[in-house]
């Protein structure tokens, strides 16, 4: 249980697994691990915002542990990971969020090429 947001934290989402594991393939020194994890979260937040803006939503990282999802009217929800993000975003947006949506794809197709380095 998170003492701040009262969320019951059970298992991490599969997309966070890389930074949850502590095996030989991903093991890093403590501070390096935390820096890489923070960089990944920052990168993910940027990518998500390019999608969420199409639905009038915005995402902020909240202390490196949760995300704050808000709509343009200021309605805000706390989400823990990608598993919780999409249903909550759908609720806030009032319509389905679909990566096959032609309008979203048209918008993304016009994004400038180039990206941040793979983490």
């Amino acid at each position, binding site marked *: 249980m998170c003492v701040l947001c009262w969320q019951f934290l*059970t*298992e991490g*989402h*599969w*997309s966070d*697994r*890389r930074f*949850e*594991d*502590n*095996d*030989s*393939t*991903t093991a890093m020194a403590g501070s390096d691990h935390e820096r890489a994890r923070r960089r*990944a979260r920052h*990168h*993910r937040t940027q*990518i*998500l915002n*390019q*999608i969420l803006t199409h639905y009038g939503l915005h995402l902020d990282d909240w202390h490196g542990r949760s995300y704050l999802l808000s709509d343009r009217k200021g309605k805000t929800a706390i989400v823990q990971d*990608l*598993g919780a*993000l*999409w*249903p909550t975003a*759908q609720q806030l947006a009032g319509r*389905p*969020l*679909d*990566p*096959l949506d032609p309008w*979203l*794809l*048209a918008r*993304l*197709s016009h*994004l*400038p*090429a*180039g*990206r*941040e*380095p*793979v*983490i």
Partner: protein
Amino acid sequence: MNRPTTRPITIITGFLGSGKTTLLRRLLASPGMHDTAVLVNEFGEVGLDHHLVQRLDEQTILLGNGCVCCTVRHDLVQALTALLDRDQRGLIAPLRRVVIETTGLADPAPLVFTVVTDPMLQHHFRIDSVVTTVDAVNGPLHLDRHPVSRKQVALADEIIITKTDLALPDTVAMLRERLRRDNPAARMTTAILGDLDPQWLLGPQASHPTVARTTATVSPELLQMPPHPPGTPHPHDTEIRALALTFTQPLDWIAFSVWLSMLLHAHGEAVLRVKGLLNVGATGPVVLNGVQHILHPPEHLAAWPGEDQRSHLVFILHALDPEAIRTSLQAFQHLLGAHPAVDSD
């Protein structure tokens, strides 16, 4: 998490009369199976002589979202918990593996969902593979008439064509071709009266099952195979279709996981299977293996298993146009850092 502490589970499924129990009986008769527990839904006509056979009385709990794949099999939770308890109390030989035989009409997805999502079981067990038996004589009819038979094939990691001695070679060849198109990610073999080397089914897991199977099955020949040859109508065009993609450039894993989680949220019921080996620009690939809404935790490997370091991705879709997936990946390419190629090197 230390992966080797989780015990592999093999799910044997297949339509009624397709030879599941015969296969299981032969498997259990082979040496080295004393540390394997067997969970069956029904004690069939073919008796199973094994000291660790236990019956599952199907108890399903449909979760709030109503998706059939996201159904908890409470009977399985109870059976695996009881096995674990007996194992840890030293009442049975150390438990190394579990084999589950489903009923002929069962959808295997809830079994996978139960193990992958249960807060306790996921730390002690992992789904090693789904093995589907298909009867060479009646299989084509079952596939035509029964959606659950097609789903059992779509979810398979391994497909075993049985009773090949009773069918004409051409019939077997046509069935093999059809199964290959419906599930290009599965390994396939034939067996008469369950006569199959247990190592074929259980052996590779000792090294790394998913990698072995993914690299073995997503071969360039397979990727070059057109989804449906022109002029040959496929009876299930609107139902189950496969899409095999190759990415020559490394993928941005974070962007890809955003895209995939969004896809599974919106269309999880239609994505019967997603399987792949992804180059994310690291020293080793990411192994991807999912069944509908359920994605096994992706494994980030330390090294590549072979020389081919391109990303290969296979989708098996139900009533979802593969072209829509490809178009979406193309639109996301600025975020992903790579664009998909279909059926090409």
